[in-house]
């Protein structure tokens, strides 16, 4: 346990490295592409158009303000998926560093989570502005936003740490992640509302820690409600995953340079 705490305090010593890794990620993501940074905003908008069309025109629903309903789910989902998929390769993709210089390896997956954290914040800020400009009301319940964001971030860090360390010796982790996230999109109430289904289905959905997180984002922005107390389940799962992640990473850390 003490060793894991050491890992965390060391990250603080290398905060400048973390800063430059994030900066490099943000800069090089769209370098050379025509639209550049605009893609960060365009991607959710395009998703909105497609999913909006499929899930309100082709398959009509009874949800008010469906566009914002979708965006409240899409933006956090994109944060989730981007953090996880880029983190899986964070150790292997940086093998040149890992084999030759000492630094706390945790900064590698962490830098990916932080990169998309920033992405998400910017996206959500814009969502908020557009929401207000379109005449919608926002309430004091928005102050719960940081809480939900932190729970989601803890969840993602835990998963990122586990996956990137396993990927070093088991390369099919990336295929597994791809499939699980494809399924996960539909097992999370992003394009639909959980309440439109039977209680059995709702129970199944509630096993997914992201379900309550996304419902919470919607609650505080769209409905001016406090997050459902069930979000404590997500918090619980997230903390377990974080602890597990730190433990697995710590154990496998020592063999990274040899395995790569």
């Amino acid at each position, binding site marked *: 346990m003490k060793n894991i705490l050491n890992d965390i305090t060391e990250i603080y*010593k*290398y*905060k*400048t*490295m973390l*800063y*430059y890794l994030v900066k*490099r990620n943000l800069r*090089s993501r769209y*370098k050379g592409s025509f639209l550049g940074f605009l893609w960060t905003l365009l991607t959710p908008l395009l998703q909105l158009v497609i999913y909006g069309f499929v899930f309100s025109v082709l398959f009509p629903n009874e949800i008010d303000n469906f566009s914002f309903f979708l965006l409240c789910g899409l933006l956090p989902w994109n944060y989730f998926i981007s953090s996880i998929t880029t983190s899986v390769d964070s150790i292997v993709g940086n093998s*040149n*560093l*890992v*084999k*030759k*210089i*000492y*630094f706390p390896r945790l900064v590698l997956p962490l830098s990916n989570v932080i990169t998309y954290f920033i992405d998400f914040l910017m996206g959500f800020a814009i969502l908020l502005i557009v929401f207000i400009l379109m005449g919608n009301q926002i309430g004091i319940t928005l102050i719960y936003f940081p809480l939900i964001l932190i729970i989601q971030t803890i969840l993602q860090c835990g998963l990122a740490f586990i996956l990137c360390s396993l990927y070093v*010796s*088991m*390369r*099919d*982790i990336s295929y*597994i992640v791809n499939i699980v996230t494809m399924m996960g999109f539909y097992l999370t109430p992003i394009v639909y509302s959980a309440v439109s289904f039977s209680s059995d289905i709702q129970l199944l959905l509630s096993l997914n820690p992201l379900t309550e997180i996304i419902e919470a984002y919607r609650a505080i922005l769209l409905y001016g409600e406090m997050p459902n107390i069930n979000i404590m389940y997500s918090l619980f799962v997230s903390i377990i995953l974080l602890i597990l992640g730190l433990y697995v990473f710590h154990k496998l850390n*020592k063999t990274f*340079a*040899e395995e790569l």
Partner: protein
Amino acid sequence: MKNITVIKIENLFKSFVNYYDKPMMLKERILRMKKGEKKVVEILKNISLEISKGEITAIIGSNGSGKSTLLKILTNIIYPTSGTIDIQGKVAGILELGAGFHPDFTGRENIYINASIWGLSKKDIDSILNEIIDFSELKDYIDAPVRVYSSGMYIRLAFAIAINVKADILLIDEVFAVGDANFQKKCLTKLRELKNKGVTIILVTHDSGIVKEFCSRAIWISDGSIKLDGNAVDVSMKYDESVKFSS
């Protein structure tokens, strides 16, 4: 004469497991599809040594003798199979140059990126920035993307950063093999400067000139064990003789 021990290694063993046909996928492991035969190779056998503060030590030996592995263990990149290591002070291992360099970023930006991987804060880097730029002799090219640098420029910048990281113990792995004579001279001058400041230096090198001229002590590692450990000139001569007679 200060005789503080800064590095103490006791009974260090390091083995690697070499796989023939390693199972890299989950299914291969579960179904035992690949033979997964493995052979345990002992790279370092019972290494024990003590290095004092300010000592300049050369580690010599043929390729594959375990020198680089020893350095990696001292830098915490690889961990021992058994044995203990006790190190006092900050260690910087220069095992490769330019790690983390991004071709699209300028030399100046890469200084910050690379130096931060060594654990320096922005403030630290600001304070040594000019020293690094001067040492690299890149002048205006410092603000050009690294992509356009010649290999010589690249090396000069990379070394300039690595050598200016403030460390108590410096481990250098054969980086003198690259770069022209001028560059090598410059590096040695800088190392002499550091030597005078009391930095403990360990050099892995094949260059017996550097060993005799610059180092006070040499450790000859052969096939994973210490064959000889003593005065740099003596050990280096014996090593040179053995190389002459072996092939």
